[in-house]
């Protein structure tokens, strides 16, 4: 057999071997790539996977809830950037709350730099950032005669609607303060409020190989090289066969 035929046989054999060995990776890359391209439409950035083992893998320490804030018939427990307001989860990546106040027509949760206004049914009415607040950081939140009161380093401010603010009196304010959770409640809420990672983030890390750590991207690089080898050997084999057919 001539060296050219030997090379052709060698290439064909390895083209098939590489193709078979890498087919799972190729399918995996293709599927995750297509899904990532449409992640916004699929809402993957707003879907979270909550699992303690995943958080540990990402090096995110799981924080156990220790306190609850209570006001009237409402309560709030927070951990790992998640809030449970009246038994209902309120979202992801939320700040650490400072307190909870019930007003006649809304429930207000404060963090050091924002306010979240909820209706009595738990629907978010408004979210005020530092620009909409009279001063930050907020040190405490309370109520006085059906008004919301914020305590800041620049003084205390009161409002009825969280739109217009005026100075508040120093006395007579019922400040929200945390209440310790029992050991069983801590355990229960720790499970309910496990830290979450967005599906998009996980898919992106899996697609790029980063999920497997430092060597993951190198493995993906190797697969990319295999794709290049397959493409080139495929093209070469195609033209070689065509050339031989034309000669015959």
């Amino acid at each position, binding site marked *: 057999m001539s060296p050219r035929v030997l090379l052709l046989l060698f290439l064909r054999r390895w083209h098939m071997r590489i193709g078979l060995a890498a087919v799972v990776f190729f399918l995996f890359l293709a599927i995750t790539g297509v899904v990532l391209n449409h*992640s*916004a439409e699929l*809402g993957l*950035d707003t879907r979270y996977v909550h699992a303690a083992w995943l958080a*540990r*893998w*990402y*090096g*995110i320490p799981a924080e156990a809830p220790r306190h609850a804030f209570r006001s009237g018939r409402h309560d709030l427990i927070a951990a790992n950037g998640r809030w449970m307001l009246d038994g209902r989860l309120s979202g992801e*990546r939320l700040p650490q709350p400072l307190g909870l106040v019930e007003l006649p027509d809304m429930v207000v949760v404060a963090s050091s730099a924002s306010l979240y206004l909820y*209706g009595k049914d738990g*629907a*978010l*009415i*408004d*979210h005020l950032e530092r*620009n*909409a607040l009279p001063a930050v950081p907020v040190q405490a939140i309370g109520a006085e005669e059906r008004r919301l009161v914020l305590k800041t380093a620049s003084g205390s401010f009161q409002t009825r*609607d969280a*739109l*217009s603010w005026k100075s508040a009196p120093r006395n007579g304010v019922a400040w929200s303060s945390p209440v310790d959770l029992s050991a069983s409640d801590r355990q229960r809420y720790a499970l309910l409020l496990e830290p979450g990672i*967005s599906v*998009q*983030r996980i898919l992106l*890390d899996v697609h790029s190989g*980063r*999920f*497997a*750590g*430092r060597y993951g991207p190198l493995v993906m690089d190797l697969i990319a090289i295999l794709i290049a080898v397959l493409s080139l050997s495929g093209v070469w084999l195609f033209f070689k066969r065509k050339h031989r057919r034309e000669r015959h």
Partner: protein
Amino acid sequence: MILAVRRLLAALTVMLAAAAYGEVYQEPSAFLAEVFGKTPPPKVLWLTKDLQAEAAAILGHPPVQLRQRYWSEGVKSVWILEETGKEEPITAGFVVAEGRIDHARVLVYRESRGQEVREAAFLKQFRNAKLAKDGALDRDIDGIVGATLSVGAMERMARLALFFDRASRR
């Protein structure tokens, strides 16, 4: 090995968290002061069920909150809105006058790519845009390579600002 993986992922998480704070190009209060001189007190547009449905049709998802703050004086109103581009919300200010966008500005940008949407060359496309009968803008907004989702978010916010302005004047 496992420790190295966790360190790497933790570092990425910290980077993403830092990105979430975003780059503030202009504080919303400064934008309001620039538009009005002396900023008027905020007003509120309550999103009734009908308004929520129409806002959801514009955004492609239900609005996240039930009331929208805005500022207005005479024919001019200012809407400071947030909408997610790819992963993080973009905060943008829209000045609406007589049913048209007077000007738009990106105030806070939190994504790692696509900052080109803050450039004047892109934003000037919104000048004088108004709502067409089908609720879309009356013109096409040219996209930016690598910032498709941010461009889409800006366009949705522009439509929402015009829609809210119209609803606030009913």
